């Protein structure tokens, strides 16, 4: 009678860039200086947008907003690995993903300003709207990916969600099906340490979130989520694997939410200043800047010009946002059904 180990799993961890901006040459993904600049500019832009959105909310010019500060590398690195025609399924915090995917910033403000027309990605942009109920878009992403597989389309589907999302059944059901049917999907978990005030340790006893993928028969990998190169490297491998027909991957980006959960959260009630300070030292934008400086990709003038350019872009977006005429009451009748029912037509007349 044997008693033996029949299966064991190894959970990989990837870091390419350390806190001081040294990159491991062997692990460095293929990226031209031009591409690195593009990544950097996106991260700076997202940060500028994020800061501005927060201020607008405080000034009463925007509704509730979820800040992404600290998670820029996770969002940009993963979304950058996709190509046009691939689909993304973002969650509430993922403005960084949407900006990387070309979603007009004034529309993101419009959305956060309480006008959902802002989520209607212009034709040609394959961005699904933000899903607010946590993790419920994971099975939807799986289903869309599976449809692409059935239709033999060259499309990869990427869902973004937080650590908190891994507690819900949708995460498990969505990943389970994705594993069985080997769908072309990439699941990007931005583990920022908290689901509102609930710390990661109270969400699961598992040591990593990445390991959950193994239960569903596919690979999970943990990466340093503040390291743009690690995230990009893991994501582009996962995307290539999905494209080849080799099934899904779960990527756990270990990162940190520097600000509160949302503009209505006071994070000092559940975490220490010291903890936040420790994470500030690992800032993803600073880290990339250090690398670029060392490798002579970034000069002071270039940095200055990026700061100026991104600030202008954000100001322009705010201007455009505030010029958008408000929606009309009749609008909510328009898209309830593909064709309005008789009853809706009646109710519309009553307005």
């Amino acid at each position: 009678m044997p008693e033996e180990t029949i299966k064991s799993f190894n959970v990989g961890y990837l870091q390419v860039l350390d806190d001081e901006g040294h990159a491991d040459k062997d692990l460095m993904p293929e990226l031209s200086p031009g591409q690195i600049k593009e990544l950097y500019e996106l991260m700076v832009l997202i940060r500028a947008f994020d800061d501005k959105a927060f201020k607008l909310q405080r000034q009463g010019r925007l509704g509730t907003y979820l800040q992404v500060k600290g998670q820029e590398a996770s969002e940009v690195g993963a979304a950058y690995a996709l190509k046009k025609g691939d689909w993304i399924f973002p969650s509430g915090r993922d403005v960084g993903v949407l900006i990387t995917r070309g979603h007009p910033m004034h529309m993101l403000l419009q959305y956060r300003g309480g006008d959902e027309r802002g989520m209607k990605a212009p034709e040609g942009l394959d961005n699904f709207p933000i899903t607010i109920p946590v993790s419920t878009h994971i099975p939807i992403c799986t289903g869309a990916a599976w449809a692409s597989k059935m239709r033999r389309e060259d499309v990869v589907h990427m869902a973004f969600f937080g650590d908190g999302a891994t507690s819900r059944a949708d995460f498990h059901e969505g990943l389970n099906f994705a594993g069985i049917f080997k769908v072309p999907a990439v699941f990007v978990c931005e583990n920022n340490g908290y689901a509102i005030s609930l710390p990661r340790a109270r969400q699961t006893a598992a040591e990593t979130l990445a390991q959950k993928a193994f239960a569903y028969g596919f690979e999970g990998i943990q990466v340093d989520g503040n390291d743009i190169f690690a995230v990009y490297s893991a994501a582009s491998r996962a995307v290539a694997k999905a494209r080849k027909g080799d099934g899904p991957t779960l990527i756990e980006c270990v990162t940190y939410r520097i600000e509160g959960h949302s503009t209505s959260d006071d994070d000092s009630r559940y975490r220490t200043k010291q903890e936040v300070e420790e994470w500030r030292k690992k800032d993803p934008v600073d880290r990339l800047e250090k690398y670029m400086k060392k490798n002579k990709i970034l000069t002071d003038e270039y940095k200055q010009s990026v700061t100026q350019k991104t600030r202008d872009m954000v100001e322009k977006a705010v201007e455009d946002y505030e010029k958008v005429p408000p929606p009309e009451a009749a609008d909510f009748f328009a898209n309830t059904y593909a064709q309005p029912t008789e009853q809706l037509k009646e109710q519309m007349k009553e307005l």
Partner: protein
Amino acid sequence: MDLPVDKVESTRASGPAAEGKRTRTYREALREALAQAMERDSRVFVAGQGVDDPGAVFGTTKGLAERFGRQRVFDTPIAENGITGIMIGAALAGMRPVLVHMRMDFLPMSMDQIVNHAAKWRFMFGGRVNVPLTIRCIIGRGWGAAAQHSQSLQALFVHIPGLKVVMPSTPYDAKGLLLASIADENPVIFVEHRWLFDQSGYVPEEEYVIPIGKGVIRRKGRDATVVAISHMAYEACKAAESLEKDGIDIEIIDPRSLSPLDDELIFDSVKKTGRLIIADTGWKNCGVGAEIAARVASDALGYLKAPIRRIATADTPTPCSFELEKEFYPSSEDIIFTVKELLNKSPLSPQPYRR
């Protein structure tokens, strides 16, 4: 996707089809609709627990896996909500899924995806996408199906904007409404009644659709209007035969679709008869009958000669005991009793304690 719209306005709810006409059972009609939809449109597929097993969901999917392959007709892991989400994703990506549940009681497990997603994505995406998803589910009655395997939950879904809800009662409507649901750009909850699977009736071989939102007059009459939903259409026909012997002539309307609802058809009938009874398979409290009654009360009140009555199950969970079931489910007897009672009532007479 244009299917011919059949001109047949009404088919009798029960009894053999007219001489020389092609007859099929309700279950065969459903299967034929699925097969024809899949044959014509490669975007259509069928998923759900048991669709490719020997039982084939009461035979309604029999042979489809063999014919179309297990890529297009397949069993799923037991994960109702997740699978609903997956079907929504597939629908968003351009497929036309038919998701099958053996029992409507499993829909509460998928409530989040149906209510928060299927019904909302078109709206929230500014009309850029549709969710052409058909969810077939089966209600039952009898055999000790009890509290968790017998529920008629249609009212829950009728309440949700963005969803359509249909409840065909004849084989003819089963086929025509299933083809219509699959062709519809919106999510449709397609509710079947287990007692109808063996019913046979006229079913044309070619494809046709019954427009969703159009009811049908099953029997013309002048004394009272009975709006009878799903299996209750048969109970109403039975009641009509008996009432006829007493010289009472009821009009039976089968709405077929509960959302949208063909209220014009009901108003016109009430204007003629002046009396309204709604016979539903579900509960009374906030049930479909309440909505129909409210619409008639606001649009045709002046025509009513008697109070509106609802025939529905008592507002309790379904008992398991065979004896209690007989008490629990309304039947033609209840319809007969209520019609007779209404014929002796003025609009202001009080509602009796029991139906």
